[in-house]
């Protein structure tokens, strides 16, 4: 039996094909200006890649911002629940999940058997999200991938104290003018992201093994900053952190269909 998880996020669409044990295939693309048709196209592509018909998929579960609008979904579920199911698939003993996506950051607290017992989300503000990091990369004229690597090389970090993405950008520009090295600025940016999300998580309880998911968990600079902030050597990051929500959706679909 095969199931499909579709995560229609604010910045990217993610699809996972699941056979009950492992990921058969996964696809990711930008949401663009028509995220629903983007998701439909990706869905057809996934079927075509494996010579499947829609009827071969026992159940499709949608999650993410566009979850309630995806016409091929049998059911929709909140991304908080899907991310948890995806993380528990890799790390069954996780106590908390930090998830940073395109425009949300969340911290999820898990109890026995990976059950969600609490969650907090950022308020209506882009600071500390994937979109914010994209904006920083753009200001510095690098790609998102480049800034992650640049931050790993060197020591020291400047303070980025602004709570607003736009003001943080002006803070970065003033640092550039006073000739602060780019890697120092970037570590400052990533530490400010880490500080925000850990402060959010401290409203719950950030103890025990912690996982990090979402598109931003692909950024080694942010991973280092969160470890630094948590004063911990270990942060569990799934192999493809960006597709954790879609994987969880596919897993929940598999459980429902079984």
């Amino acid at each position, binding site marked *: 039996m095969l199931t499909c998880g579709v995560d229609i996020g604010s910045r990217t669409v993610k699809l996972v094909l699941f056979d009950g044990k492992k990921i058969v295939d996964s696809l990711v693309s930008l949401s663009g200006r028509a995220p629903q048709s983007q998701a439909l196209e990706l869905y057809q592509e996934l079927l075509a890649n494996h010579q499947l018909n829609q009827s071969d998929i026992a159940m499709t579960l949608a999650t993410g911002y566009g979850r309630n609008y995806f016409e091929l979904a049998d059911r*929709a579920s*909140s991304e*908080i629940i899907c991310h948890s199911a995806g993380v528990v698939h890799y790390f069954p003993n996780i106590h908390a999940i930090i998830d940073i996506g395109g425009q*949300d950051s969340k911290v999820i607290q898990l109890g026995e058997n990976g*059950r*969600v017992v609490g*969650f907090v*989300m950022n308020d*209506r503000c882009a600071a500390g999200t994937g979109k914010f990091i994209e904006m920083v990369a753009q200001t510095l004229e690098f790609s998102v991938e480049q800034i992650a690597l640049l931050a790993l090389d060197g020591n020291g970090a400047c303070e980025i104290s602004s709570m607003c993405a736009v003001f943080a950008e002006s803070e970065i520009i003033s640092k550039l003018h006073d000739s602060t090295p780019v890697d120092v600025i970037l570590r400052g940016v990533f530490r400010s992201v880490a500080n925000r999300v850990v402060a959010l998580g401290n409203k719950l309880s950030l103890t025990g093994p912690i996982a990090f998911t979402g598109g931003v968990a692909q950024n080694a600079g942010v991973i280092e900053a969160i470890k630094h902030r948590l004063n911990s050597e270990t942060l569990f990051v799934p192999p493809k952190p960006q597709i954790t929500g879609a994987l969880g959706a596919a897993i929940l679909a598999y459980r429902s269909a079984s």
Partner: protein
Amino acid sequence: MSESKKYCLETGNKNSALSYFESSISDEIQYVREQKSQGRGIVGFYCEFTPRDLILAAGAIPICLCGTSQNTISHAETVLPSNLCPLIKSSFGYSITGGCPLLNDADLLVAETTCDGKKKMYELLAKKRKMHVLELTQKVNEQRAFDLWLAEIAELKQVLEQTFDVEITDEKLTQAIVAMNKERSLILAVQALGKHKPSIISGLEIAKTRYRVAGFKQHLSKMTLLLEQANDRIKSGYQAAPFHAQRVLLTGCPTGHGSEKIIEIIEECGGIVVVQEACSGIKGVFENVDDSGDPLTAIARKHFNIPCSCMTPNKGREELLAQLSAEYRADVVIDLVWQACHTYNVESALIGEFVRQQLGLAYLKVETDYSDSDREQLKVRVQTLLELAQC
């Protein structure tokens, strides 16, 4: 997902009492204008602590003028700070735009010191309008706090007598109390329709029945009609939500026409709001005025007992939540906090603990304003809570 579409609102039925209340503001504007032209006094107010009973006893019409529209907020922000409660901004915005005929017709505004933002906003309103502010004492268990509140109510009686050149006798007070008790009981009966399981009425439908002008007989007869029509729904097996829909007790700041965002989100996510522990729901009507003792003392006592977060300590809110969660068979509690409402915002830490530990129910606090910009983010939180509570 598709199942919830079966449970849509009854629309387009002009004979339904619910349709009447959806557009009752135009009837209110016309009624107030007619009454004003016949010489009746018009009194606007901004809070459940202002006793409608006393205004009716003065022969005047009490009108709740709390702003519930996003549209006036940008006007208000030309004077007020943007980081302020939307209810205060929206209310003040109407005085700038002149867009509320009910406010324009008011001869007197009565306000209260329930929060600092409102208190200072009233000073701005008082530059243009005749205004009387009631000082609400807030130590709810102290006799001397009540005595001061009673003195404030007595002073309001004098202000009304002077403004409208009438004498408010004990007999008039008692008549007004009886009339308002009847009206509060009717509102409570409508709210109590939420007790049915499966639900026969949605939280949004009940919210739409709240109106502004008190003592308006047409409203009372429509509420009676609504109760009859609810019986028809029961007989026909009508369901406003599936039997297993999560039943939500909404607590905290009041909603209103145009600011029902959180109710819409809860019901779009498959939940059903069964009762509001808020001024827009049960808070002002769960208790009536005692019609046997000294009327002024009885009026003061009923209003002093309102378990608003401005009172300290506010144990009455916990008691009311315990009572309502049992009576309305709530599965989860959602606490609505309007941005910058400090008392409800801080009190949520106590309420969250009480709901989880004493009532054993799931709890979610939502801090937002009247704008639609965070609808999708709120939906994630609400949907997660409802999904988890269902497991």
